[in-house]
């Protein structure tokens, strides 16, 4: 039992690495994508829109397989499997985040941008000091949903051979002919997501000083 828990903690560590690295890359990338989507240049906005449609319109598991295997057939070289997981997750989640950002940015009343403009704020200052802080507050509930989904989606990484928590649990289940490891994994995921929800609750409460 002790050995099993150690193995599962190792798997959890891999899952957490996937989780945090995905967030690290997809959160800023999503902003770039959102900006592209809202671009006034037709070509840019429709290209980005196409990218978002593909990312949201195909299963993540397929994208995972594509990112890992396709480069070999196209370029004749392949990426490390863990890197492939991070790339696939980052570009997938960036698409979802981008749409959430876009909704948040577009929900900021036009009048505030006009006020900023009349007061002489630069575009960058307006974005970083007026728009983004309010966007962050508005998108928190939707982001919470996505981040919780990401915790559970880490289980797909086993498709291309990354031994994350769920793979470890399934292997243990097969080895010991018992469903117990799977249930323990369920508890692990549940605890991780409980922490995620709590964190989002905290952030939301922290941002509650204005309406």
């Amino acid at each position, binding site marked *: 039992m002790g050995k099993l828990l150690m193995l599962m903690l190792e798997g959890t560590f891999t899952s957490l690495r996937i989780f945090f690295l995905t967030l690290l890359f997809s959160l800023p990338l999503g902003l770039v994508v959102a900006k592209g989507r809202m671009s006034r240049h037709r070509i840019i906005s429709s290209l980005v829109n196409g990218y978002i449609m593909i990312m949201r319109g195909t299963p993540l598991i397929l994208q995972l397989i594509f990112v890992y295997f396709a480069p070999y057939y196209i370029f004749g070289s*392949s990426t490390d499997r863990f890197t492939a997981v991070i790339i696939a997750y980052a570009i997938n989640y960036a698409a979802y985040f981008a749409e959430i950002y876009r909704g948040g940015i577009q929900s900021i009343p036009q009048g505030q941008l006009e006020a900023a403009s009349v007061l002489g704020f630069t575009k960058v200052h307006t974005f970083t000091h007026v728009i983004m802080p309010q966007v962050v507050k508005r998108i928190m509930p939707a982001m919470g949903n996505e981040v919780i989904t990401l915790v559970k989606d880490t289980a797909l990484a086993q498709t291309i051979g990354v031994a994350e928590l769920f793979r470890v649990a399934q292997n243990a*289940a*097969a080895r010991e002919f018992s469903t*117990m490891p799977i249930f323990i994994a369920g508890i692990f995921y549940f605890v991780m997501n409980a922490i995620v929800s709590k964190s989002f609750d905290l952030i939301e409460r922290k941002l509650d000083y204005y309406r």
Partner: protein
Amino acid sequence: MKKFLMILMLAGLAVATIGAAGVKEQGGDQSLQKVLDKGVFVLGLDDSFPPMGYRNEDNEIVGFDIDLAKEVTKRMGVTLKLQPIDWNAKEQELNTGNIDCIWNGFTMTEERKQVINFTDPYVNNAQVAVVKAGSPVKTLADLAGKKVGIQAGSSASDAVYGNEAFAKSLKEIVEVKDNLTALMDLEIGGVDAVVLDLFVANDNIKRSGKDFKILAESLSAEEYGIGFRKNDQALRDEVQKQLLAMAADGTLAKISTDWFGGDITVVGK
């Protein structure tokens, strides 16, 4: 929060034990009678396991094992239902009664024999390593410090992990969902070798036309059996009886020749 976790854990335990208890509580061995009453025999398989069981171009499940099972169920007078399962969850599928047997190039390992009621072996098999044709790897020892791919939960996985010295010599053991993914991984250089069933390896190399070769040295010799629930003795005996009859009248040899060009079966021999 703590309380909630406790409840969740207890619920998990409850589900796990009920699954096991449900099987034990039946008085007497009704397993065969139940199948005959239903008129349906549910065979659980990983439907991406050629040539034992896989999907052809028309998306029908075919294979050597499938042909055997068809003949057996015909003789039993019941309908064969093929139930694709996640190979990694096969024990749960069997124990919870979703399927009546696992019949899919199912290797009889010592561990499995503890919890599964196997028929006598019907085919001999081996776990072999496949490498790219140009690979410098000639023996299993050459794989030291290299990456090896396997299908998670497969008997190849048992063979690799079971051979501790070999497993320790490897740089990494990469487990993927199915053999096909493992072989694709071999092709793109993600792993240096894939360990899998001899039959599957032969069939894959033949059909894909990929430049792979099988190492002469095999990891372990194995036997295929059909797996039933521990308590389903009557059902297991009936299938065994039919297989013996098929061996006696030459049907088994005929099916084997159809698939492998010769009789590879060991029933009654």
